[in-house]
């Protein structure tokens, strides 16, 4: 994260490094512990199966956190997520691997606020290990400067 990109130097479009994360049972249980979301589909495999799922799955906040991590790992810790829009079209289950592929799709200077904000729009697709799209994300980062 020492090589944070300079907003003025970024040319669009730009691919971000692919990020993979193995989601074990422990990680799904940590998800409930961290978010206080104890919907039983997130910790009780029997409940999840009764609802038509193969097993327990991570919640929206976990997917959001993964997308945010991909964005700010690349842009550096002085950047901040100011908007994120996500569609949940498939679930990430315990035993799956999340794969995040991001790219910068636009670069904007927002002069509607003072001082103007330097923004980057990213598209991040979260798929599972079978390449099935689970969560397409549109994310806007504010960069310093």
């Amino acid at each position, binding site marked *: *994260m020492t090589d944070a990109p300079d907003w003025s130097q970024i040319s669009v479009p730009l691919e971000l490094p692919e990020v993979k*994360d193995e989601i074990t049972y422990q*990680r799904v249980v*940590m*998800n409930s*512990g*961290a*978010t*206080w*979301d*104890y*919907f*039983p*589909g997130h910790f*009780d495999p*029997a*409940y999840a199966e*009764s*609802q*038509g799922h193969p097993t327990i799955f991570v*919640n*929206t*906040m*976990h*997917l*959001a*956190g*993964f*997308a*945010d*991590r991909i964005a*700010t*790992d690349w842009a550096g*810790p*002085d950047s*901040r*997520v*100011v*908007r*994120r*829009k*996500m*569609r*949940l079209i498939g*679930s990430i289950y315990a035993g799956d691997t999340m794969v995040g592929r991001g790219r910068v799709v636009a670069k904007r200077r927002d002069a509607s606020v003072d001082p103007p904000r330097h923004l980057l729009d990213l598209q991040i697709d979260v798929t599972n290990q079978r390449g099935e799209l689970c969560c397409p994300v549109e994310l806007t980062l504010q960069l310093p400067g």
Partner: protein
Amino acid sequence: MKPISYQLAFGTYEDALRMVGVASEPRTAGTVVSAARIQMFAATVRDRNPSYWNAEFATRTWGGLLAPPGLLMGWLTPPPWEPTGQPPVSAIAIRVPLPGTTFINAANEAEFPLPIVEGDLLTIVEEVVSVSPEKRTRLGTGHFVETLDTFTRQDGTVVARNRNTLFRFTPGAPS
């Protein structure tokens, strides 16, 4: 099947429509934004961003350890047990009376006008924006419930808005 621990409200689609446009009373988090929860969430998603871990860096950059944007909804999620013995107050989306026996999230859009930092005490106002007519999906039959949460901090400033769409349904293969 085990009863769901969340307090789902049951009713008809017509009952649900009566809640559209209704904003909840403001609800304030039981505790302030804390380093412990910030770091447990960062550990869960394996995010090494020093904004969550390094108090000196975070204070210089944001005014305190930064609340991970992904954890936004978690700050107003009550603990799963409270000493009153009453079931925890659930999000407005699952208090909308509908027939569906369970739910899953379908979409979310969050905006963060200002950073939320350690020590902030957040208050939420929740509003039901829309309830769809009955739909069939691969999971079952039910309704999409769209809500809008507005988060303010202790000085009344809006720090986040969260628009969420949840699918409230009864499991079953589409016929």
